[in-house]
């Protein structure tokens, strides 16, 4: 009679990767809803397209790697990657951009490295960076100026569908434009802040609807924090670092983008709560998370202010991904029974 012999513990708590990932997906829904409300169905269509592409690419590679497909698809990580990419891409980006970014993210940034848990970089941001560098025009002009702000019309479902899939640019031109961050950055050298805000993108409102989008992502992030899926370290340190940089270096609204625009426009909150906190590629020690978050905040400000791109969540996160293992090695917590924490990876120092 052979009984089952497994190593202890013989019991397991309720945590499951698939459930965690599903919760993350749920937490993005308010943001998705608000984006759809302000920018039309383009966001929703692209998000669905990204999720479908992500799941399909994942299944394809698993099949090629001779792994059980359904077992690994059920971990919901591909779902989250697709979702985040869909939210990050311009609402009216052509379909092939979405498909290219997503499949690249899954196949090259995730599965090539060994699949879930083994990717050194955030897959969604790798995909995003690829298309941003390769197709800067499509990536910066396909944003929608919110009709709620301007009062003008926005693309309906069928229009959005045709813009995305047929690329009828004539139809698209009516709705699309640059983001507030982009406009402010490029025009502030020519105009004063007050003049700028009279433009269509802002229409008197500083953030042209983006503030609601960011607040929705903030709400989702707080929900994740409450569910103990993410900790406060990365978002708080990132936002604090961004704020400090903006207050010290960019205090003059007539020269630099103001703090409110930094915090509540672009992908700031999505990045702080959903992208920078991707556990696989982020730092994991408590101190390390603070440094990692702060690094992203500083890089975000630097690239937004002096770089060529209007928004920089992707680059900031990817650059800090490089540093995460190093940060982890030098920020080990003090373990029980030790007078001081250990540093680095060198063996021997006891």
């Amino acid at each position, binding site marked *: 009679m052979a009984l089952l012999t497994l*190593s202890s513990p013989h019991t397991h708590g309720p945590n499951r990767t698939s459930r965690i990932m599903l919760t993350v997906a749920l937490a993005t829904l308010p943001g998705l809803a608000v984006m759809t409300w302000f920018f039309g169905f383009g966001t929703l269509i692209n998000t669905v397209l990204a999720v479908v592409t992500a799941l399909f690419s994942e299944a394809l590679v698993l099949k090629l790697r*001779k*792994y*059980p497909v359904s*077992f690994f698809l059920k971990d919901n990580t591909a779902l989250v990657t697709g979702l985040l990419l869909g939210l990050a891409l311009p609402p009216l980006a052509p379909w092939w951009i979405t498909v290219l970014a997503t499949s690249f993210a899954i196949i090259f940034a995730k599965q090539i490295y060994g*699949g879930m848990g083994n990717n050194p970089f955030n897959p969604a941001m790798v995909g995003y960076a690829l298309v941003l560098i390769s197709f800067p025009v499509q990536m910066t002009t396909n944003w929608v100026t919110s009709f709620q702000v301007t009062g003008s019309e926005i693309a309906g479902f069928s229009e959005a569908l045709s813009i995305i899939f047929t690329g009828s640019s004539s139809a698209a031109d009516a709705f699309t434009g640059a983001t507030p961050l982009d406009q402010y950055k490029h025009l502030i050298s020519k105009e004063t802040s007050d003049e700028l805000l009279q433009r269509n993108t802002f229409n008197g409102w500083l953030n042209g609807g983006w503030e609601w989008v960011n607040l929705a992502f903030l709400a989702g992030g707080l929900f994740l924090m409450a569910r103990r899926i993410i900790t406060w370290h990365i978002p708080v340190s990132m936002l604090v670092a961004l704020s400090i940089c903006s207050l010290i270096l960019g205090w003059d609204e007539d020269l630099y983008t103001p703090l409110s625009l930094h915090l509540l426009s672009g992908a700031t909150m999505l990045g702080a709560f959903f992208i920078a906190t991707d556990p696989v590629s982020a730092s994991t020690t408590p101190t390390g998370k603070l440094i990692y978050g702060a690094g992203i905040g500083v890089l975000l400000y630097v690239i937004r202010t002096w770089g060529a791109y209007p928004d920089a969540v992707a680059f900031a996160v990817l650059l800090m991904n490089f540093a995460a293992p190093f940060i982890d090695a030098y920020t080990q917590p003090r373990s029980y029974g030790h007078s001081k924490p250990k540093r680095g990876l060198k063996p021997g120092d006891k």
Partner: protein
Amino acid sequence: MSTIIIAILVLAGLAAIFGALLGFASVRFKVEGNPVVDQVNDLLPQTQCGQCGFPGCKPYAEAIADGEKINKCPPGGESTIQALADLLGVEPEPLDAEHGAEKDVPMVAYIREDECIGCTKCIQACPVDAILGAAKQMHTVIVDECTGCDLCVEPCPVDCIDMVPQSTDTSSWYWQAPTTGVELIATDRRSITTEAHA
């Protein structure tokens, strides 16, 4: 013209500064390394079995330092080759089969004592003095000292020496690393998926 001169001056200045820095570092952080022979010898398993063709581990270490191949040590196996390759900065090579195969389990010599005639030949063969006995007296192996090198087996005129695997007991046993879902190869896939659904 002046720009070229400035460029040259700047580069020369930089070169001088970094050169000084490197020089300082090489003096300040000088590492007093072990002689390579000792480092190599520390990596060898010290079974003194001579399977490498040298009379012991130290001679082989000396030979390696002089450029001998690093894949001639069956008791050390792949891990020793890897360690030597890391130390010496050379490509690891598979174990040279000519010198024998790596054993799965550590062995110790065991003398069937009632057959021993007390010839002392094994005592002379043992490189680590792990056999106890005297002429015309029964010999025995000091198990704790035996390196399992096999060298005593050959000289025994009555073949009373066996190499037996070293047994594990409850104090030396330990859990092996688990094999988990992601690491499974294709042939094992069926079992994990059925497990998952069972």
